[in-house]
């Protein structure tokens, strides 16, 4: 769907074009008619002056050139002309006509006649002519004409001036429009940022900090986010409750089968089936957990807190006596993972490392320049042969069955890390000789408020 900004800008431009076209047409036609009226008015005045001069000098027509002595009539082909035809057909005309003659309409009328025709030099002229009574029954035809050249030039200048003015107004209008769009859309941009920043936080968006037009949407988003958090919480709790509900009966069945086997009954197939059932359940619960993870949002776990807990817990664990676990990490590192998911990954990997280690397990964590958290767990155990490394992260692949376990730890860690857009890589550790697990995790950008 077209963006709001594009819609607003396109709409604004269309409106502006329509307004400019209509405005330009209206204003220019009004001004043109005004110019034309002014042109005609000037010519009428000149005609009136000529008529007065003719009336006063009908006895001495040759004096007319002096009487109508305006300078514009003196220059040949100046564009301003007058011409008087006497009843005898004598012709007196302005020097500007330079011997040329203006045509006379055939119709005889005492009313002024207006006409447009090609004048001297083939130039279009507008003329006003009138039969004027100079004595009883004696009528002279008095005509003035003005070239339309200057009128048309004026029209062009007027049009250009108007176009420039409207272009300037349009430019200001577009700038104003863009600014307005940015200002109007600003609350929506803020909303987008707030939503991505607060998805995992318990407190919703502050409705009061948005314009009233957006407030209902913000309310709806708050409701949606709350519902989403509820669904996530509920599905996790249901998965945990289901696990709890299934595992105790499974433990009971396992014990009964163990007893029967100790009494000599062949229960191996049933035990194997139960093992598969348990492994499948464990993997499915882990998958449900990974799927219920929203990795796009701004959660963050403090490594100091999480790794500190893990370090204390694993060192306190009775079964790890005689093995040392050291964690070396910079202070204040944040990883963009939910804390319980992060602990799930670390718990599985550290448990695995300590199970196989001879004497020690080391953890190192640091932040790279490109904003990733690199965590490496190494042990001095037997490691995994190069050709079996790929198998190790697959579900239920127990490479060595000499120690208890479901073979799911690496696979669960793998699934969860991938759900958060991270990477996990296994290799042989050059220094300790055992397995090295390298993780590349997204860095957390903000501390959670809860």
């Amino acid at each position, binding site marked *: 769907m077209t963006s709001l900004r594009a819609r607003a800008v396109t709409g604004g431009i269309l409106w502006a074009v329509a307004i400019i076209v209509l405005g330009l047409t209206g204003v220019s036609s009004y001004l043109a008619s005004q110019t034309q009226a002014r042109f005609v008015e000037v010519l009428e005045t000149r005609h009136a002056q000529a008529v007065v001069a003719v009336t006063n000098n009908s006895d001495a027509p040759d004096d007319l050139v002096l009487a109508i002595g305006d300078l514009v009539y003196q220059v040949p082909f100046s564009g301003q002309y007058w011409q008087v035809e006497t009843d005898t057909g004598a012709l007196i005309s302005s020097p500007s006509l330079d011997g040329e003659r203006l045509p006379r309409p055939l119709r005889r009328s005492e009313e002024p006649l207006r006409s447009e025709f090609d004048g001297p030099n083939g130039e279009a002229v507008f003329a006003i002519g009138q039969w004027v009574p100079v004595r009883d029954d004696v009528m002279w035809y008095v005509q003035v004409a003005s070239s339309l050249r200057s009128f048309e030039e004026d029209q062009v200048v007027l049009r250009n001036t108007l176009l420039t003015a409207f272009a300037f107004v349009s430019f200001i209008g577009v700038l104003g429009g863009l600014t307005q769009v940015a200002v109007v859309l600003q609350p929506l941009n803020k909303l987008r940022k707030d939503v991505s920043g607060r998805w995992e936080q318990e407190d919703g968006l502050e409705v009061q900090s948005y314009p009233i037009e957006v407030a209902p949407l913000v309310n709806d988003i708050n409701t949606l986010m709350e519902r989403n958090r509820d669904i996530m919480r509920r599905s996790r709790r249901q998965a*945990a409750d289901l*696990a*709890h509900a299934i*595992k*105790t009966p*499974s*433990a*009971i*069945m*396992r*014990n*009964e089968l*163990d007893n029967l086997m100790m009494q000599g009954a062949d229960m191996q197939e049933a035990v194997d089936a*139960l093992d598969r059932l*348990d492994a499948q359940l*464990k993997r499915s*619960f*882990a998958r449900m*957990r990974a799927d219920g993870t929203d990795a796009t949002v701004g959660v963050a776990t403090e490594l100091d807190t999480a790794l500190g*807990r*893990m370090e*204390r*817990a*694993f060192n*306190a*664990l*009775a*079964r790890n*006596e*005689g093995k040392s676990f050291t964690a070396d990490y910079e202070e204040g590192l944040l990883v963009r993972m939910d*804390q*319980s998911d992060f*602990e*799930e990954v*670390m*718990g*599985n990997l550290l448990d695995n490392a300590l199970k196989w280690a001879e004497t020690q397990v080391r953890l190192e964590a640091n932040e790279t320049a490109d904003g990733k958290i690199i965590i490496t767990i190494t042990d001095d155990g037997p490691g995994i042969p190069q050709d079996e490394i790929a198998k190790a992260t697959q579900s239920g692949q127990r490479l060595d069955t000499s120690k*208890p376990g479901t073979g799911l730890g690496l696979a669960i860690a793998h699934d969860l890390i991938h759900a958060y857009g991270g990477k996990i890589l296994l290799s042989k550790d050059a220094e300790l000789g055992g397995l090295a697990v390298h993780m590349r995790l997204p860095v957390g950008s903000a501390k959670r408020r809860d």
Partner: protein
Amino acid sequence: MRILIAEDEPVLASQLKKTLMSEGLTVDVAVDGAEAQYLGETEPYDVIILDLGLPIRDGLTVLKNLRSGGNDTSILILTARNDWTDRVDGLDAGADDYLTKPFHMAELSARVRALIRRKAGKATPVFSKDNVTFDTRTNQVMVDGVSMNLTSQEIAVLSYLFHNSGRLVSRNELSDHIYQHEGDRDSNTIAVFVNRLRKKLGSDLIETVRGRGYVIKATV
């Protein structure tokens, strides 16, 4: 050795009890968190097996309350939840070990034995004194390489004395660690068990400190 099982699922609790008793351990069962905490605070257990999902008071609270009350009994937590956070919470609150359900009973026994040995400061599962050896994994007692047939009470007494070797153990303490909470206690029967052990294993193994108790001196 006395074990408290805090597990609300009756069938699982009875299986655990049966298995541990068959290994010569004395077992009490608490069915909720409040009872577990009360028994943990008032009875001298060697190991407490604590399910985290107990009714009335959850296992983690019981664990924290016991530890904050100065109780240092070895505690093995059982959890049915997949979350490592639960386990880390438990270990961080002072548990010594954990097992996730479902588990093999053999693994649970091994962990319980390991916790008992750890308390005794012993790394290997076999105790040895002169010509007598006691294997905590099988409860097998051998004299000069010959397996001896002992009753469960005799094994309980011997096991407790071996695990506390070098230390004088009073009749009352022995009685506390081999009889159930609701069992019929008679400290005089302790003397009877010790006498039988002397007859079967030789009179030098267990020394009597008159009026105070018994001791098995330094073992290997």
